[in-house]
């Protein structure tokens, strides 16, 4: 295997995705508007509900927006990443996939380049959420380095969701089915996690599920950084778990993709 050629192939697949993304003005708008809606509508109404000592204790912070911002970042990563596989189904349908496969490019470069672009797009979205939330008065306890860590974790999470979606798309070859399955995945993942509501406020059975949900790892690591500070004993286990999940998912996505085109 020639690493230089592999990197070049990944770069060009990535280049294509980013270039296409940048051309889609409507999609870029949605990237800004969607988190804005969540933060302004949901964030503000929940703030009214949670302005009392008991709620503050459950949230671990006096301000619901502080609590919610990392959750919104992960939710955006989840919704962005989970449609990563759609681009493969689309490429298959338009014939562009065959065009790439007839070229001397490494098969693994196709999922890797796509995942890289999903990771970058997710980080960009997370950055926009940070900027919006700063305007809304959200306070990031660990400052600039903390924000970098938040973006990084969001990106990782986007790659994980993208990897799941790409793996599915190696088997599911119709757009409609893939969309349906992806939608089916996102809601339960979201609402069985600590992204929107503190686990302390959940019934015991839901709390048990929430603690095992990878969304919760990511949100927990991010929330620790943004609302409490660099508490390493909280941060590292979550980050390591997330990294392991990412490596496994990416490997699976590459394997299933390579098999599906052979």
């Amino acid at each position, binding site marked *: 295997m020639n690493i230089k*050629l592999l990197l*070049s*192939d990944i*770069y*060009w697949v990535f*280049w*294509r995705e980013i*270039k*296409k993304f940048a*051309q*889609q003005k409507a999609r870029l708008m949605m990237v800004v508007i969607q988190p804005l809606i969540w933060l302004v509508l949901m964030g503000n109404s929940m703030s009214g509900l949670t302005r009392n000592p008991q709620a503050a204790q459950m949230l671990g912070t006096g301000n619901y927006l502080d609590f919610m911002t990392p959750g919104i970042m992960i939710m955006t990563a989840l919704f962005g990443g989970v449609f990563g596989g759609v681009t493969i189904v689309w490429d*298959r349908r*338009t*014939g*562009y*996939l*065959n*065009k*790439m*496969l*007839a*070229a*001397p*490019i490494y098969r693994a470069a196709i999922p890797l380049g796509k995942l890289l672009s999903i990771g970058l797009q997710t980080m960009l979205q997370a950055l926009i959420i940070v900027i919006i939330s700063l305007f809304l008065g959200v306070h990031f306890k660990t400052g600039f380095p903390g924000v970098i860590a938040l973006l990084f974790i969001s990106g990782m999470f986007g790659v994980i969701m993208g990897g799941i979606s790409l793996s599915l798309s190696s088997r599911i*070859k119709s757009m409609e089915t893939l969309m349906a399955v992806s939608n089916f995945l996102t809601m339960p993942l979201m609402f069985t996690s600590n992204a929107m509501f503190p686990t302390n406020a959940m019934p015991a059975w839901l709390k048990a599920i929430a603690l095992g949900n990878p969304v919760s790892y990511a949100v927990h690591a991010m929330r620790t950084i943004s609302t409490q500070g660099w508490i390493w004993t909280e941060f590292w286990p979550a980050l390591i778990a997330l990294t392991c999940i990412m490596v496994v998912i990416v490997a699976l996505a590459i394997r299933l993709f390579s098999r599906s*085109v*052979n």
Partner: protein
Amino acid sequence: MKTIIEAQGLTKVYKGGILAVDHVSFSVFEGEIFGFLGPNGAGKSTTIALLTTLLSPTKGTATINGIDIIKHAYQARLELGFVSQDLAVEDSLTGFDNLRLQAGFYHLSRTEARDRIAEVLKMVDLTARAKDKVETYSGGMRKRLDIACGLIHRPRILFLDEPTLGLDIQTRREIWKYINNLREQIKMTIFLTTHYMDEADSLCDRIAIIDRGIIKTLDTPVALKDAIRHEVENPTLDDVFLHHTGKEMRDDPTSKEQAYKSRMIMRRARG
């Protein structure tokens, strides 16, 4: 004449036991336009997918410019250009960016890419529109851009899978002109499939007719027509085609469900 494609007993059996290509052997010579004709589902697309390394054969092999497509798929890919029937160009990018991307897939250096892009744009007369987005192009321009993409790495052989599918007669003639230019100006070998007999007749040096995975006949258009002159007066290539593939519409004894199922399997395997 130098042989540039040599297929030896090429066979593809899809999952479910559907025999799409059945021990096909033929040679394509350097510099010729080789027509590959057959009814729907005859095995044309499968044969192209095998030769362009998009599918691996169940049995048999082929060489492209002497390179084995199974043992050295990577090198074989450098020798061939593939223009599918799908019109696979990126609408949201400019013509130039489409070619830049293609040059990247073939590992051309920055300066090399710039020169080659200028060269292929000129070949298909798109230089003036290179900076425009493809979504503003006409059908014929898109096809020309697609062909230019297939030429960026100067392949020895270009596979054109139904290059004029869905184009009007004026645009088809225009595409023929570019295909002819490729042969005359850069001595490109072209492997072409089409459903239009007039197209095959006017473009191709030699024609193979495939049906149910088997090559029925292979010769020059003139010889093919001469061979059935005892049956038909002033035969056209249409007559030749019908002679070898049968006049009846396909009504296989298998059930409707079976036919549908086999079609889905083939489509899925081809992607």
